[in-house]
């Protein structure tokens, strides 16, 4: 890791600075469309902010955390210097340049199309070019993870690949393939329209391409968090990982069944047949399996830690857990949010139940609870755990860390639970203005106010998080011991090739993509009459 500390820190810092800025925008959005604030008068301001918030939180933050954490794992789990470090810096530079390229037109109000693009709306070409640069930068990371794993395998023939590397590489390959959908949409549909080469766009096809990316991107966000569950948490709380193989099984299942299921995002779209919607619904349901395996394995690992600390009984062992340890708090909060968010997700993926909440605030509440809650709280945990190893300085503001995690958890619950509820009442999403004086929606007003309170708590938590990290940069120098990942109860000595490599699962993932997406895409390309006029955003005033 010695050759890549600055590289990893650069990734984390850029991601977290972006996170801080986007968090403020998010809180402002909650406030601006709440009953506490008079109508903005210009919805474009709201959508401009939503675009910047979404682009930063969905593309920039998780990509940089996954990249930085991946490089960290190469150094500390494979214990080899990162091969291709110059390429890694080039990838980082692309992400940085891409972020700036995308944010400038957004800030100028020339690309208020939201991070999911929503064709036929077409924004300034530089916005899309910026997003493409971020993705291309991350593809360099995907390649580097595969190359470094291959180098290690060559030097350690037959040895089990460390679980952390196995997991993060599965995430990298998942991202490599799932980002292809949005890349096709951007390169062949949106950019030609944004550059003025075409004046129409097949919006239905574009939405299907984006759905290819849109669901598995969630699992790309999630895999660093799951990697931390398996490979950091048991060690950090003084336990053992219950099963290394269960982890591998979970990650390969994510690789196969999390990818070709995105059509559940377009359940209400008429251009996709009901049969394919059902097929995607079934495979979305299967994604619960690796999550259940993970919840079981990590709960068992936590129980081992409790019993090693003298915990006994059916439930009394919970009291023996190291609750003052920030990582213990993080995983507990993450699991609670994962439980509620996952239960909501089951409703989203059900073809029939989805109709009740489709395009309502329920959906926004759902992905904030899962991503902003369960996953991002683990990003905090990862940062707290690896920071001293990156900076060579102590990170010991434990009280602040606990306060930060508590406020993030409480803030996220207070924000998202009312958000879900107003969604059930029928409050639509992606609207800049709600007339709360209308008796039909007046009952929603107090719950929207409550969400704003949650958002303010989250801002406090975000400030605490950055404070902890900044203090870590200026703390006294220390020499941390070599970084360790969790040790499994039964450390694998030999593994079947299928659980020690990803080739088989990669092939199944691509095969299932062809089955689940092949016909709808070919059909929409071949069908005539799908093109609609492009709507240029921010063109003439």
């Amino acid at each position: 890791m010695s050759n890549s500390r600055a590289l990893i820190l650069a990734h984390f810092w850029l991601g977290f600075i972006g996170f801080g800025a986007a968090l403020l925008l998010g809180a402002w959005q909650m406030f601006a469309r709440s009953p506490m604030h008079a109508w903005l008068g210009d919805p474009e301001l709201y959508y401009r902010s939503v675009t910047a918030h979404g682009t930063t939180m969905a593309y920039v933050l998780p990509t940089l955390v996954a990249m930085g954490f991946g490089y960290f794992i190469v150094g500390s789990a494979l214990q080899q210097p990162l091969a291709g470090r110059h390429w890694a810096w080039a990838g980082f530079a692309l992400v940085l340049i891409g972020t700036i390229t995308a944010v400038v037109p957004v800030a100028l109000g020339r690309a208020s199309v939201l991070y999911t693009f929503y064709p036929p709306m077409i924004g300034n070409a530089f916005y899309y070019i910026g997003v493409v640069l971020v993705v291309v930068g991350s593809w360099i990371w995907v390649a580097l993870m595969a190359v470094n794993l291959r180098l290690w395998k060559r030097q350690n023939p037959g040895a089990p690949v460390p679980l952390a590397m196995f997991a993060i590489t599965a995430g990298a390959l998942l991202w490599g393939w799932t980002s292809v959908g949005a890349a096709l949409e951007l390169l062949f549909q949106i950019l030609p329209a944004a550059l003025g080469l075409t004046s129409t766009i097949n919006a239905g096809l574009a939405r299907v391409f984006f759905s290819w990316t849109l669901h598995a991107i969630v699992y790309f966000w999630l895999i660093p968090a799951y990697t931390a569950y398996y490979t950091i948490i048991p060690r950090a709380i003084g336990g053992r990982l219950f099963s290394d193989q269960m982890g591998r099984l979970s990650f390969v299942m994510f690789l196969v069944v999390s990818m070709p299921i995105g059509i559940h995002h377009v359940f209400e779209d008429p251009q996709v047949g009901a049969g394919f919607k059902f097929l995607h619904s079934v495979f979305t349901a299967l994604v619960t399996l690796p999550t259940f395996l993970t919840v079981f394995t990590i709960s068992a690992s936590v129980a081992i830690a409790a019993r090693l600390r003298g915990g006994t009984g059916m439930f009394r062992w919970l009291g023996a857990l190291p609750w003052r340890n920030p990582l213990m708090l993080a995983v507990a909060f993450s699991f609670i949010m994962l439980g509620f968010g996952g239960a909501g997700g089951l409703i989203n993926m059900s073809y029939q139940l989805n109709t009740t909440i489709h395009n309502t605030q329920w959906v926004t509440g759902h992905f904030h609870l899962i991503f902003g809650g369960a996953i991002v709280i683990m990003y905090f945990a990862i940062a707290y755990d690896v920071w001293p190893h990156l900076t060579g300085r102590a990170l010991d503001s434990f009280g602040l860390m606990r306060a930060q995690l508590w406020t993030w958890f409480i803030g996220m619950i207070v924000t998202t639970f009312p958000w879900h509820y107003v969604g059930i009442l029928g409050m639509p999403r992606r609207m800049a203005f709600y007339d709360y004086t209308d008796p039909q929606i007046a009952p929603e007003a107090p719950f929207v106010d409550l969400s704003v309170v949650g958002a303010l708590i989250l801002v406090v938590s975000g400030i605490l998080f950055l404070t902890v990290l900044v203090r870590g940069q200026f703390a006294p120098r220390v020499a941390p011991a070599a970084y360790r990942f969790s040790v499994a109860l039964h450390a694998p000595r030999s593994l079947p090739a299928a659980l020690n490599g990803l080739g088989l699962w990669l092939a199944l993932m691509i095969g299932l993509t062809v089955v689940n997406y092949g016909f709808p895409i070919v059909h929409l390309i071949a069908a005539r009459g799908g093109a609609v006029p492009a709507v240029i955003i921010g063109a003439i005033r």
Partner: protein
Amino acid sequence: MSGGSPARRDRWTPASATVLAALVIVAAAAGFVWLPLIQPGAAVTGVWNAICTAAGLIYAAPANQPVIQPSYPVTQVELAPGLLGGASAESIGRGATLALRCTMCHGARGLSPADTPNLAGEYPIAIYKELRDFQSGARPSAVMQPLVAGLSDQDMRDLAAYYAYLPRLPPYHPVSAGAPPEIVLSGAPMRNIAPCGACHGELAHKAAAPWLEGEPESYLAGQLRAFATGTRHNDIEEQMQNVARQMTPAEIQAAAAYYANRE
């Protein structure tokens, strides 16, 4: 690559591929055949038809079905981004000559106190579309229809270019518009009314929507009432009719007064 024997390695590949294929087959059988067939009132006529329908194939409308047409002519103008962009000086000049016949009502330079629309500086697409609609009868007008009857398509493009070229001048109305009424600023989301500025400038501009500032109050209110009663119906996909039908008479008057007094 691993400690496993080749025989052990083989078991994973066929087993995982088989499980996945079985899942696909069972799910597809349910989604493409079973569910479409048991759906009450489903229009499918057999297994193959069920599969094609579930796959999302688009069928042509059944033959011999009567197609319901509106009883009045609708606009035939196709709007595309860049339509009428970059008018030449010749086009503007020809437009200026042609516009001599418009001066009686619309003023010598596109501005007039005659309670007719002020055209100076108007978006060219808006002018071109209305001229085409007057000519086709999509927008009936006893005054305008005879005047545009003899114009060629190029004539109308030239007229649009000329009026778009003229500078917008401050309106004749000395009164300040004051704060915008609620219906202009926010629309009414629960009645599906967007803020006026979402199409007519200020917030955003949508093709063929004119700017409204300084237009005569009686003209604006009259057009809104015409949209509301359906006597004017050349709006694209009835956008303005849907808005105007939902507006109260007081809101129509307030919106017209606001825009008429706004520079």
